[in-house]
């Protein structure tokens, strides 16, 4: 099957978003669940594999990546609550990605070197991973869900269990929401005065935001 990036995005959104959310009453127990950093839905092995996937999606460099931000914890807590409908997709996906790794190198996914892991993930995204079981959900669906969840876990408010110590927002240079903190001044909007980030840093940092080709 071919799944365009656009369908993937939309599919991931609808899967993880409104359609799944509809099945759950309000208010949610998400914040409470996020208080625990232990696995709630994922098994210990699944946790390790999902964490390894997130580590390649937003890697650690001179700044924190998905691992330090706790994206897998965000995912586990989302699967315990709003996105419970995706729990089976994760189970099947983890088994299937290991099947791909076994076929490729006779190893589990977490045992592969980073470059090999990237090759596997690229094949999952493109829907042409050798060894992905016929009976499993399409690999782009699994990839898209983990991708969206990792992004959310990196960049959503820390109360959901990811973005630990504002790791994701620090990477972006986003100072945090101002809805209940008094907003910005006209001088700040024109870049003539620094902003206070939620973690106390003065932003913007000089030299930030310079793109490097990856």
């Amino acid at each position, binding site marked *: 099957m071919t799944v365009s*990036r656009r369908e993937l995005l939309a599919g991931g959104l609808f899967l993880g978003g409104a359609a799944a959310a*509809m099945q759950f009453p309000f208010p949610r127990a998400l914040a409470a669940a996020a208080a625990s950093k232990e696995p709630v839905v994922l098994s210990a092995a699944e946790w390790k594999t999902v964490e390894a996937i997130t580590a390649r999606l937003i*890697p650690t460099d001179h700044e924190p990546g998905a691992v330090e931000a706790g994206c897998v914890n965000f995912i586990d807590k989302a699967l315990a609550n709003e996105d419970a409908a995706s729990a089976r997709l994760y189970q099947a996906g983890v088994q299937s990605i290991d099947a791909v790794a076994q076929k490729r190198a006779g190893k589990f996914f977490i045992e592969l070197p980073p470059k090999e892991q990237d090759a596997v993930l690229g094949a999952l995204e493109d829907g042409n991973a050798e060894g992905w079981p016929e009976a499993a959900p399409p690999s782009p669906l699994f990839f898209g869900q983990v991708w969206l969840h990792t992004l959310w876990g990196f960049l959503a408010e820390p109360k959901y269990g990811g973005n630990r110590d504002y790791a994701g927002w620090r990477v972006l240079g986003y100072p945090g929401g101002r809805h209940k903190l008094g907003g910005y001044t006209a001088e700040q909007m024109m870049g003539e005065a620094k902003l206070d980030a939620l973690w106390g840093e003065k932003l913007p940092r000089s030299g930030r935001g310079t793109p490097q080709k990856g």
Partner: protein
Amino acid sequence: MPVDIFDVCVIGTGAGGGVMLKELTAAGMSVVALERGPHLSTSQFTDDELATMWRDTLFSPEQVETYRLEEGAASETGRFNSIAHCVGGTMTHWAAWSWRFRPDEFKVLSTEGPLEDASLADWPIGYDELEPYYEKAEWEFGVAGNAGANPFEGARKKAYPNPPHPPKVSSESVARGARKLGYTPFPTPMAINSQPYGGRPKCMYGGACQQFGCPIHAKATPFSILIPQALATKKLDLRPDAMVFDVPVGKDGRVLGARYLDGAGNTHEVRARHVIVAGGAIGSPHLLRLATSGLFPKGLANGSDQVGRHLTFHVHNLVQYLTDETSMHWTGLESHAAIDDLHPSDAKRGFIRGGVVGEINFGCKLPIAHGLGGVGFPDLERQWGAGFKDYLRTFPRVVGIASILEDLPMASNTIDLDPEVKDKHGLAVPRITHRQHPNDIAMLAWYDARMREVAEAAGGKQIWAPVVPHLTNLSEDVGMKGAGAHFHGTCRMGDDPDASVVDKWCRAHEVPNLWVVDGSVFPTSGGYNPTLTILANAYRVADHFVAEAKRQKL
């Protein structure tokens, strides 16, 4: 307020319904307002991006529609727009761009002549009839702007009530690029307080407007203005969590009131002398189609088979670029600068009609939106890995430009009832059938090129058109998905009962005490955000309604 029969039942409390319930209670009428969503409070208005923008747990968590490209095609189930189900309607989370349509936007058929496959039409009213009501809407909602700064606007008698908002780096960048190309940038007129006004405070420039509720009422909305005013009259019986599913008709062909389901699924009925349907261009035809009877087997006021047709939702187009400096895009309002030079229709461009272009931060103002918006970023092959992380680090330097373009109406683009999918009450959900007219596609491509020129002139190094779900709406295979919140058509106003649903006063041709007052009455969509025109038209209808009531002519 125990009454057996209300003077008026208003269904929907957004821009159209909000104005009607406020104006009619002010005139002393008893009004019952039925709103399918809850009555929220400002304490619920966070800037939690995940909950509000992506999970949408606050404004319309139960929204579900189906969508298909054309009759006979398979439909998919989901949500294909970002309307809000709550007291005050979608304006509760609007960005507050506030335009008057240009005079020719009311006369598209006579301006352009007929066009194949498009159901072009003239409005039964013109700019001059609406001008005093634009003024009223601007002053009731405290629009901030610089009157006369847009050389392409229709004639106005009065300035805006509030001065424009101060600029930010990103809006200055867009304005600089536009000026280099010979365009005339001006402050985007916004219904957000630039100074204390109407008992509401000045904006604090927190940055989370579009898709978010304003925690301090600086943003002008029915929730913050009209509902409290109407409640203060003691003439309003406001009933949230009331999903209307039927508007029963008596033997004399007049509607009797409305039947609705409360949050627990219990059925209630209210009686009223007049019923005003204001559910928006999806909700209103949806209700009229649900309300079948012996007299109206195809839906209420649908003897002409016009209910649900001619759906338009604008062509939104987005281009982003990076500046050398920190752009501060995530602060302030969604838009501080706009140009209208590209708006006037010119068939020599390869298409008719056009639209406004403005600075916009919707696709980048928050972290997750920025992450999703990396699709299409130059030289970024995959949306993950080291390159993607570098892309994430560009957040402080993004600037966005959007165009809001007049899409053409087509009779085959419709809202009707899905034959299979039901909501939690067991009611058929709205089915959207929509294919883009070729004119829309040509227009999109042309504006994309012009916006890229502005980005280049502004010094943009990387320029891209991101794919952000909920914002961009044209794709290779689906023309509708994520069409934002601009919906029009589906209950056209017109003089011909065979070609429209309501007359020039928004009164149903086929039912004397039934009115439709919202964006669904727009015969054509205009190249601007529609809300100020919905408000102005509602003020016009309300004036007429009250005058006729005084003359005992209703």
